């Protein structure tokens, strides 16, 4: 993977100027490379990882993993059904997987009730959906490579040879 992507994946706020300094290139070239990645869809978007468990004053949010069994359709296989499902804004992730079921969804909702209602009223009744299993998430420890707890303090002594 290009080092520009490696740097941005770690910290999307790194400026083209800083990246240029680190990679010994011209800022203009970095800007162009990033533009190109954005245009090609390699860089999809920039977002912030928020540990919502630490925000006490907002509405709590529940997440659920949902296994979905579906009947593939002629010519388009699973893709068309998947599209109908992932287009719902409640679905935050959607994967086609091997094994005993076909789609794995991650659902986000205001509360348990909202999520259950979505499954019961929107997902399960769909023509090609054969069955669903819902797992509510209890605690988030790590997400997308990021461990969600307070940063550990530096344990090194401040000066050494």
């Amino acid at each position, binding site marked *: 993977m290009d080092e520009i992507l490696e740097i941005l994946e770690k910290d999307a706020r*790194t400026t083209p100027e800083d990246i240029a300094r680190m990679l010994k290139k011209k800022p203009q070239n970095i800007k162009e490379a990033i533009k190109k990645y954005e245009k090609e869809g390699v860089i999809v978007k920039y977002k912030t990882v928020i540990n919502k468990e630490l925000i006490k004053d907002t509405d709590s949010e529940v997440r659920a993993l949902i296994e979905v069994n579906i009947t593939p359709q002629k010519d388009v296989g699973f893709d068309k059904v998947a599209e109908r499902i992932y287009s719902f804004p409640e679905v935050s992730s959607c994967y086609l997987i091997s094994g005993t079921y076909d789609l794995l969804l991650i659902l986000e909702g205001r509360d348990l009730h909202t999520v259950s209602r979505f499954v019961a009223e929107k997902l399960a009744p769909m023509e090609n959906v054969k069955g669903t299993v819902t797992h509510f998430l209890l605690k988030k420890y790590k997400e997308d490579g990021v461990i969600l707890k307070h940063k550990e303090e*530096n344990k090194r002594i401040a000066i050494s*040879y």
Partner: protein
Amino acid sequence: MKNIVSQKVQDIRPSGIRAFFDLVLGMKDVISLGVGEPDFVTPWQIREAGIYSLEEGFTSYTSNKGLYKLRLSISRYLKNRYGLDYCPEEEILITVGVSEGFDLSLRAIINPQDKILIPAPSYVSYGPLTELAGGIPVYIDTKNEGFKLTPRILEKHIDKKAKAIILNYPTNTTGVSYTKKELEGISEVILKHKLLCISDEIYGDLTYDFEHTPFATLSGAKENTVYLNGFSKSYAMTGWRVGFACGPKEIISAMTKIHQYTIMCVSITSQMAACEALQTGRKSVEEMKREYKRRREFICQGLNKLGLECIKPNGAFYVFTSIKNTGLDCLDFAQRLLKEQKVAVVPGTAFGGQYKDYVRISYTSSLDNLKESLVRIEKFLNEAQTYGT
């Protein structure tokens, strides 16, 4: 209790910057660019291997030379990576970091008054350990050669009592390293004078501009080389204290003799973790290396922009920066920078009395910290200029 301390130890010069170190340790919220170790923690799978070994009850001594499994892995690694052949039974010894390996090599070879050549500036322990072993350190100042030892200045320092030379590349203090061609020039002189080369290559894996060449791989050099390396820097395992020494059977066996009476063996937990490091740690090493390389570009350009000249390091994670422009002595510079802007660096005199125009800056700190420290250094320089020095 008068004169209870031996003359030899009394004669070792106390480090002139101890007081400065104490000052740093006593201060809070300092951005430290004075740390000689990685800011990464040991990769998890390596830590986990240590924990697992404890759960399994591996709490005993190992053989004096170290776990055979580890020596075998090291032997295979060196063969695969550099084409170096070291027999795990007789030519490899597991040591408590390179520090012990270094001490053992000196004690194994020095007769009273033997001279040991040390290119300077150098890591702080080379001189004192030479003295403790009864030898005489001969420092070779490389300042005027771009901090690189050259065959010419090496030749100038060799006399009949010269027994060995200590190489350390990439170098702790300047980060300077040598290409294969440069090493061949040095090796020619070393071999001509039949010196032993004690080669501390702990930063070898962190070489950024060209391939690292172990001294022992040079034509005819292996028989005259003690190759020292370890896990501390490249695998971020400083606190585990595992290193290794490779060399001719005769020397390794002499070193083992001392090691068995003083150390017995390296902690088994650490040795088990080191086995894991060799098996699965390469990817982490490469990742950390890329990160250091990027920081190097960042900090060097930043310092140069501030008018603090430095020779661009080829490896390790240090920059030895000239502060001559500021008109300040390195200890003043470091003390004031610490007090006024809360940035810690190591004064150059820690690495030799003649380096009072230099400070050592480590880039083992996050990019955000490096950025912030450059801002603070700039502020410091501006104020130092305004108020006169």
